[in-house]
């Protein structure tokens, strides 16, 4: 990675710094709410925590790619001494990093909450990890679609799919035979179900993130 691309990635951070901070703040507060005791507050808190991460991902992907293109800052970037392939790669890498900062923080926060809180069974840990992993893979799906898309309509559709996918994921994982039963255990169960889903998530992440390299980065008409 050369000086120019690292500067552009740093700029990406600079642009989204308030968004990142805000997401982390909302997430942390939500975790506190979730841990404050009552089941209802737990639900509200976890929902807010989930929404914070998911919404942040969509917003940062939109701002980072579609809005830049629309607002013609893309033309300015392309006037710099880099190729379109380098641009795609730095966008991918930069925005992933921008997502990872709040994601890591809030994932850690959720895991800490589960471990620390007495009234939260540690059996929740596998599910929490899978959910966080899914959110990361889901974000990469939105990000790579945004890189590929040429119209805003397409990206909007992708975001809708992304939102539906979250509920779908929770439902499907909960329906895995035996998985649901272990959620309320005091100790976490790292069964085959867990490792399989985790492996699928990791593989999806890699496959999705490699697509821009082969498709978008090779485009010859950039505008």
């Amino acid at each position, binding site marked *: 990675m050369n000086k120019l691309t690292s500067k552009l990635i740093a700029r990406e951070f600079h*642009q989204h710094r308030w968004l990142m901070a805000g997401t982390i703040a909302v997430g942390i507060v939500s975790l506190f709410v979730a841990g404050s005791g009552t089941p209802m507050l737990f639900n509200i808190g976890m929902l807010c925590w989930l929404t914070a991460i998911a919404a942040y991902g969509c917003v940062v992907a939109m701002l980072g790619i579609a809005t830049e293109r629309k*607002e013609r800052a893309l033309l*300015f970037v392309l006037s710099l*001494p*880099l*190729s379109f392939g380098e641009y795609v790669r730095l966008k991918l890498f930069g925005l992933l990093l921008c997502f990872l900062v709040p994601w890591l923080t809030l994932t850690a926060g959720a895991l800490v909450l589960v471990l620390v809180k007495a009234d939260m069974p540690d059996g929740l840990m596998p599910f929490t990890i899978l959910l966080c992993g899914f959110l990361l893979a889901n974000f990469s799906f939105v990000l790579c679609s945004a890189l590929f898309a040429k119209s805003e309509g397409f990206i909007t559709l992708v975001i809708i799919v992304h939102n539906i996918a979250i509920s779908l994921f929770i439902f499907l994982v909960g329906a895995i035979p035996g998985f649901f039963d272990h959620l309320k255990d005091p100790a976490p169960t790292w069964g085959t179900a867990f490792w399989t889903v985790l492996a699928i998530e990791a593989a999806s992440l890699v496959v999705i993130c490699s697509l821009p390299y082969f498709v978008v980065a090779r485009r*010859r008409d950039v505008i």
Partner: protein
Amino acid sequence: MDNKHIEMRGVRKSYRFFTLDDLSLDLEPGQIMGFVGPNGAGKSTTIRLAMGLIAADAGEVRLLGHLLPENQAIAKRDVGFVSDEMRLFAHATVGWHMNFIASIYPGWDAKYAATLIKRFNLKPEQPVKGLSHGEHVKALLMLSLARRPRVLILDEPTSGLDPVARHELLTEFMDVLRDDSRSILFSSHNTVDVERISDRIVFIDRGRIVDSRDKEDFLERWRRIQLQLAPGAILPELPNIVGRVVDGQFVTLTTNHFSNDLLARLGPTVREVHRMSLEEIFVASVFHHREVAGQ
């Protein structure tokens, strides 16, 4: 011998409703080339081809000797590109962009940048979000000029600028040309500016180059000739007449290759001979070209 800064040979680019065809263009070092054409003629497409932002369907494009679009990263190191559609990063200030560009390009001249800021009436603390269109273009031009690139490629650089800003800008362009190893390609609707500072002028219409020659060549070749024919007399067939307006005995001819020979053949019927402004030449050229193409 110096290599050409921009070289396009037989370039073709097709879109659904528009095709750029058989485009050949050369920008020599030490030259300012003015690129003139109606809206939709293909100026922006040509400029984007020259920058490697789009790839030609046929033909070859070279920028500073580098084949495009594959080698655009290297070529762009010494090229400044500003388009009137371009925008800076909305989340930062003018000063942030100056530091950004200064850190990327070794040729950045901080003193010159400071001079330009003052001349263009900009402030480093200004957030990009609050800039008007004209200020935005001035900021972009300042960022390009201050790094002293070998080639400047400008798409409508003076559009939306007030006359003072335009004057400042043209002065900076001419200053660039003090160095005969640098060159400028700029597209513009403003034929007055093009006429003034261009060395070479290219006319483009409906995806094709209509005419391309030295400015003084254009100005010398084109004339409007007013004749008064004797009653009942007919005008002889003459070469290089691209326009003819008849009003009774009075005829106005437009020629694209004026010569004393032509005057001699017209004889005493000639009342007046007028030179034409670049704008008049451009319009006459385009209409003539469309007429010929339509046949």
